């Protein structure tokens, strides 16, 4: 009998690979180029939620611009988890960056008092858009550029508030899946409690991302990695992915396609912006 060499067990849910050192070096160069090189802005403001995405963004900005030029803005609402505030403080302390706290409760409640019947989803969106408003104003205050913190998984699944989380003009993490952000966080030395806790938008009590999405991040990331290469659903299932999860992920990606684009503009002339009048963003 000859020995049989088998291929490594095929694990469709294997974590997407990332060389965190390479990614970090590349993203630091990106931040320097976009902030200083292209715009001549030496400061950054980041909405610091206490979660891993904004923590990683803060660490990258500190490397790129120096911690003294990074303003980390905590924006708690009166019902936000106190733990989020504490975790954010861990980042501020570790980096030695400037930490600021802007309580958005009065602003949010000032509006919501006129909308007492707003459901949790609407209230969550009001929180997110209020934070966007504060972040941009703080950027003007500090002559700083707002830096986005959204990761690729939430962008693909449409798990963000349109014209809120996605508004900063540059985003270093937007092409990294959540599991890759975790890897990058470990490499950068982000405090363990931030990496290990269940991700949450903290817009509602006891909310978790994975509870909202109906799928664990590692499983969603593995499906997305293959799906984005062009595999059809039946091909993904043939490769060992769970059919129900594939349908769930496909549905979220297809159903939120519009959220990853600028507003749809009616074309009326042959000089329509972004249709006929085409210029790269850095032109």
């Amino acid at each position: 009998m000859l020995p049989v060499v088998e291929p490594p067990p095929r694990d469709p849910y294997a974590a997407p690979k990332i060389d965190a050192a390479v990614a970090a070096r590349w993203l630091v160069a990106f931040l320097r180029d976009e902030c200083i090189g292209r715009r001549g802005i030496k400061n950054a403001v980041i909405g610091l939620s206490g979660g891993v995405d904004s923590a990683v963004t803060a660490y990258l900005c500190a490397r790129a611009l120096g911690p003294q030029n990074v303003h980390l803005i905590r924006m708690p609402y009166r019902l936000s988890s106190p733990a989020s505030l504490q975790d954010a403080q861990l980042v501020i302390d570790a980096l030695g960056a400037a930490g600021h706290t802007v309580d958005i409760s009065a602003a949010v409640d000032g509006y919501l008092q006129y909308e007492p019947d707003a459901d949790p989803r609407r209230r969550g969106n009001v929180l997110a858009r209020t934070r966007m408003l504060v972040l941009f104003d703080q950027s003007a205050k500090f002559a700083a550029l707002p830096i986005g913190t959204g990761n690729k998984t939430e962008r693909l699944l449409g798990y963000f508030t349109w014209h809120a989380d996605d508004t900063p003009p540059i985003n270093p993490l937007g092409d990294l899946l959540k599991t890759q952000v975790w890897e990058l966080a470990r490499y950068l030395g982000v405090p363990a409690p931030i990496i290990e806790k269940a991700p949450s938008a903290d817009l509602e009590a006891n909310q978790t991302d994975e509870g909202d999405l109906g799928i664990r991040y590692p499983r969603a990331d593995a499906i997305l990695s293959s799906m984005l290469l062009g595999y059809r659903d039946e091909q993904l299932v043939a490769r060992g992915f769970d059919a129900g999860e594939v349908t769930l992920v496909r549905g979220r990606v297809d159903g939120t396609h519009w959220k990853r684009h600028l507003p749809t503009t009616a074309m009326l002339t042959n000089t329509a912006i972004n249709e006929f009048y085409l210029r790269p963003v850095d032109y």
Partner: protein
Amino acid sequence: MQSDSQVAPARIALVQSKPRKGAYVENLAALRAVFAQLAALDAPPQLLVLPEAALTGYFLEGAVYESARSAERFGHELSSLWRDVAGQRPVEIVAGFYEVDNGSYYNSAIWLALDERETRILHVHRKLFLPTYGVFDEERFLSRGNRVQVFDSPLLGATTLLICEDVWHSIVPTIAALKGARSIVVPSAAPGRGIDGEGELVSVARWRELLRGIATEHGFFVLYAGLAGFEGGKGMTGSSCAIGPDGTMLVQADADDACIVRAELFLDDVEIARANLPLLGDLRAVLPDLLSDEELPWLRGRGDASGC
């Protein structure tokens, strides 16, 4: 052409054989045991690929003439062996052998398709590039093949069969790709050399880089079956492997022992790979201009009435 709905993987096995030099009958008997082992698997392979000179060993020199067979005879011997141990179970078998045809001798590989009713020789490839330098002396004893052909394998679809040095000339797999191949299968016998590498012989690393590069450039599967064992001090480097159309090494054997290498191929990965890296499509568009370049040696001076 694979249908859009084909999603089940193709099961293949690379038989990294270690034949005793020139002992064809003995090696054929050993192959019977291998076939029996493969046929008894829960999910037997649908394609078996054996190395170059799989049943004779590679360095035969003048003994090529004693070991060579016609393609028909070799095909019959292989198919009979499979039928003996596996009955009518369908299979495709690829194997390298020294071929004699009407007094000419070739380093060839055969592709057989066995179904319930019949055995067909789908293709015989005669090695194009006969290494005749350094340790090699093929052209002294053998004639060259002269064609790169693409044919339909029931399992793999449009396929090309090449032997060893054939794939070191990048034009050869390029022609195969342009003619529509979705996979290339490479029986080989590669004597190892180079001890200044990292963790493996330099020639083994070079082969792997070469094969992965071919797969990536053209977006097709590469199945490589390497001969193993020492032949008069020259160690064949095995390293049989299956590579996906995006260059991913799906499985690879060690260099030095006989073994069976199994893999499952999702054949529709070809479309994905070519969509994500459409180099082949780009080549189709530009190649006519490149080949009509009058600075190419065979076009230079065309139309010049002078000559020798």
